[in-house]
């Protein structure tokens, strides 16, 4: 192995107690234009916002501790793992790659995400997967109210329970919940679990590294009754 390759294989450690967020993100962004370390470890995040957001390179970033809002926002290609909890908007508008949180996440996890996989091993608060546009989200625990609101495409797999108004005003996203659903939102209905859906849940659980039986999940999606505005449906809102 050449010297340069060995250097690139080493883990680059960034201590946010000593290094500014701006410097960290700039160094990570620079990787989209020129080669550098592929493995990064961020220590002492101390709830900082916007950690590792806007990445556009096939790198792995491990974050030791809790992060604030918008960690891994608009992620492309990168793998970001948070060994702690994450606040609002983890992986918002993610395009591709993988974001994984060991703990719990606050509201709007994976909001408007267009691709990639978001894995939350703990619970997710309200509006998980709001307006999702192609992202896949797997939550090991439960999700809060108004999750998958106006969800367009992609899959939300919830191994625990779902709060009020799941899938309100949903479009074409697929929702799978193993536990109880407090209530379904406007135009969201339970649908049959066919073989293709069992396979999809199995694949997503496998990708997330979560051990659960796909047969225990139920599927929810759009009744497609609100796709064209009709005054007769006004009472549904």
């Amino acid at each position: 192995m050449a010297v340069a390759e060995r250097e690139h294989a080493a883990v680059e450690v960034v201590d946010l107690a000593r290094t500014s967020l701006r410097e960290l993100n700039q160094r990570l962004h620079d990787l989209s234009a020129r080669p550098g370390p592929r493995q990064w470890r961020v220590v002492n995040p101390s709830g900082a916002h916007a950690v590792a957001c806007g990445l556009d390179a096939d790198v792995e970033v491990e974050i030791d501790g809790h992060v604030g809002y918008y960690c891994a926002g608009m992620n492309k290609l990168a793998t970001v793992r948070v060994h702690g909890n994450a606040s609002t908007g983890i992986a918002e508008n993610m395009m591709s790659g993988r974001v994984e949180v060991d703990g719990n996440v606050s509201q709007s996890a994976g909001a408007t995400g267009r691709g990639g996989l978001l894995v939350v091993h703990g619970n997710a608060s309200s509006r998980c997967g709001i307006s999702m546009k192609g992202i896949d989200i797997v939550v090991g625990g439960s999700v809060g109210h108004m999750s998958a609101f106006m969800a367009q495409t992609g899959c939300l797999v919830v191994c625990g329970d779902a709060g009020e108004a799941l899938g309100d005003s949903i479009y074409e996203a697929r929702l799978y919940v193993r536990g109880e659903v407090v209530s379904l939102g406007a135009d969201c209905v339970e649908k049959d679990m066919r073989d293709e859906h069992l396979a999809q849940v199995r694949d997503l659980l496998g990708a997330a590294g979560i051990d659960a039986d796909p047969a225990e999940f139920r599927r929810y999606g759009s009744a497609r009754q609100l796709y064209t505005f009709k005054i007769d449906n006004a009472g549904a809102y």
Partner: protein
Amino acid sequence: MSSTAQRPWNLRESYLFDRTVIAEIQRAAAEGIYDIRGFGAKRRLPHFDDLLFLGASISRYPLEGYREKCATDVVLGTRFAKKPLELKIPVTIAGMSFGALSAPAKEALGRGASEVGTSTTTGDGGMTPEEREHSKTLVYQLLPSRYGMNPDDLRKADAIEVVVGQGAKPGGGGMLLGHKISDRVAEMRSLPKGIDQRSASRHPDWTGPDDLEIKITELREITDWEKPIFVKVGATRTYYDVQLAVKAGADVIVVDGMQGGTAATQDVFIEHVGIPTLPATRIAADALQELGQHRQVQLIVSGGIRSGADVAKALALGADAVSIGTAALVAMGDNAPEHDQEYREIGSASGFYDDYQAGLDPAGISTQDDELAARFDPVLGGRRIANYLRVLTLETQTLARACGKSHVHNLEPEDLVALTVEAAAMAKVPLAGTDWIPGSSG
């Protein structure tokens, strides 16, 4: 009874229930749904027409109209951004979506704006390659729907505009009706073709000014602090909105008055929510001055800008620039007399057409129908936009020179008087011929 001239004097039309009101009640009873339309507020509102400039006289020297320079350049985003926008004129093109407008119309806006050195803005639906290619300076909107939002386009943009609201419908979302959803629009918005596409009224991942501050930080981090961040609000609680946007870290604040246009909104919303552009302009400038941020955080005003007089008056009240939307569509050929017969065939007429939501625009501007859109020549449309922007600029300079200003930004409230008590109170300038500013303790 075909005309007013033939109406007997004993027939008296009700002021409350005039023919427009009667027609709307009858339409509502027949259709069972509120009226959705485009355009902006049509009711009479206090506006810049209610202000006049005090030209130079013995105590003020005018500039020689054809000899002395009156600069019009404006720099937007000087507060935090590494790369502020440097525009040659203080008139920009407001956000209008691909989806609401045809691709050739968006291209024309870019061509025209670029020709005269100003910016254009995307809309709800994302950035098209044509728009980027033909817009030298392009502002990319971050809207609640996030349709078409992606980090690549974010980095391609010259500035980012976080849209909290718009003047036609502050507090409201949007709806692009299914018949305007072509294959391309559907793909950009990640939704099936032909279904109504709703735009939420709130952002999906932030609520309130503290969150907004963090959101702006994220956008700056993603774009390495290069791009100016605009925050756009519909004019309502303008004083607080402007101060909160400053606190949240905005480089530029866009205040859109209730005359601002829309592609599709309920008529009741357009006509009854928000405050006019005139008071909003003065309130916004005062809010910035109170924070010591006037000219540090730039102010763009929009909503009913039609002429250089409107531009000059907005600048005199404290704006750094204005944006045009409806006027730009009209400049490109919207509501043109040559289409009158076709407008009539779809239940409207030249000068009245406001059904932008319907997608049937014979001018090929507010449509996604390929045949209709093909009628619109983006090169000619761009030239018309450039011509119109030049006229606005020349008119603004004419008024500024008359007031003795070597830069249009040197216009000030002291150059203005009001024609009505209402306008005097809203603009905080004296009623013409008096020293009375209603509401002023002085």
